[in-house]
């Protein structure tokens, strides 16, 4: 029987599987929260901007910038910390505790490379895409809510969207989402991979992974904003 060191196709398969798990798996929740966040921020901005001097289109501008700069990347990623992070930590924790990782190790497979790396890479690829989607859906949700509540006319909203638009904001958000993606996948992977004990410890470690990655994410958000804005 011919043996090849390790099969690159298996790694690719694993990567695609993780992209599916992380990307497609969180699509629903990201859609829901981003539409609502956009809607709520339109209503709240309109509520706060009562001065007749400020044109209505400013609402669109503010919604656009808050959604792009903060709400889409940071809020979505905090949700992803819970959704993706706990899944990664408990999956790897379960594999560790039930000796599946040892079984792979015995076969001569580099388990960090086979189990952890594809998760991080899949996160780095899919999470920024999810964030871009969240931006679009957030703004759309804002437009929808503004129109539905009769606060702002869609055409005025659209002109507002185009006013003083800085593409840099989008780059900034994407840079943030890449950093967040790393935190969301790598921290839980570490906690899960190094679990010792049984089912109880898997639970503990996945909770800890979510908490730690959330805090780190907010810290990174602050540092990046201070550095790049």
């Amino acid at each position, binding site marked *: 029987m011919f043996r090849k060191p390790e*099969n690159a196709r298996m790694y690719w398969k694993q990567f695609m599987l993780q992209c599916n798990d992380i990307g497609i798996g969180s699509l629903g929740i990201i859609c829901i929260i981003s539409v609502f966040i956009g809607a709520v921020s339109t209503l709240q901005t309109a509520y706060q901007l009562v001065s007749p001097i400020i044109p209505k289109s400013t609402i669109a501008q503010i919604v656009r910038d808050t959604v792009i700069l903060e709400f889409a990347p940071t809020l979505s990623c905090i949700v992803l910390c819970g959704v993706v992070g706990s899944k990664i930590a408990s999956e790897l924790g379960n594999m560790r505790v039930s000796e599946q990782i040892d*079984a792979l190790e015995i076969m001569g*497979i580099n388990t960090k490379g086979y189990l952890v790396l594809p998760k991080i890479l899949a996160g780095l690829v899919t999470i920024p895409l999810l964030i871009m989607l969240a931006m679009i859906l957030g703004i759309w949700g804002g437009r929808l809510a503004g129109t539905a509540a009769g606060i702002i006319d869609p055409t005025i909203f659209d002109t507002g969207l185009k006013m003083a638009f800085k593409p840099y904001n989008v780059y900034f958000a994407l840079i943030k989402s890449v950093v967040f993606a790393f935190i969301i996948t790598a921290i839980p992977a570490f906690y899960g991979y190094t679990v010792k004990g049984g089912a109880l410890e898997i639970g503990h470690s996945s909770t800890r992974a979510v908490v730690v990655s959330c805090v780190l994410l907010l810290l990174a958000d602050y540092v990046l904003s201070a550095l790049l804005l």
Partner: protein
Amino acid sequence: MIELKDLKKSFDDKAVLKGVSIVMSDGKCNLIIGSSGSGKTVLMKCMVGLLKPTSGNVLYDGADFVNLNDKEQKAIREKIGMLFQGGALFDSQTVEQNVMFPLDMFTTDKYAKKRDRVKQVLDRVQLKEDAYKKFPSEISGGMQKRVALARAIVLNPKYLFCDEPNSGLDPQTSMVIDKLIHEITQEYDMTTIVNTHDMNSVMEIGDHIIYMHQGEKEWEGNNKEIILSENEKLNQFIFASEFLRDAKAMRTIQETGRIPESVQGGIKDAMEEKFNMDIDKDGHIGAPPKGNVPPKE
């Protein structure tokens, strides 16, 4: 050939293995027995490289596994199959995918060829085809063990390690697994190392038995010698079971013609009564129990 030389392993300050030296018999079932906590699992994990020994050597055909580089370790690992205590099947994959996994990873064979090989080994462990598409959580513990065994042997390993292959199984299923391991060992000419505290397997498949006591090798021999051994600690371990105590007594009576001192109380009386009829002048029993051998004229 696997050889352990003065293997020691401590966790923090706790010495678990205190200098173990063993030469495993090639092409045979090597059984490591001992009570819970005697260090069997740690010993096995040191052998396959899941734990790094504190000192000592694990030699595979003379090459010291502990000090090899990654690439050389990998070459040895490719000759190792291991059956874990809990089966360690990948729960996101079906039975068939589980067994095919090593083939996917390490061969460039076409799908049809891999599927044939999978069927071959699953047949070997007597798993029916309707189980192929099931997930590990959907099959019984005994079946999981068999699938795990199939996965361990699918790449034709030279060395097979089994950590408590029949823990959590009923005696009959245990026996089936034991026999499978024994037969497969002979068929594929593997060197098999089995951790167990099941005395049934010891008697059934113990070509070479190593008794571990508190991190040390206390006794070594085969399944014929073990029952007659005079080693006190070993006797305490194996004759914890009444049944085996009686078995040993019968054996001793047959071999020496005397009722051993370990037999006490009611059983002793019953035996004396049974053998009383024909005790010669030296106190030896003339004939074994009725029914086995026709009584002397």
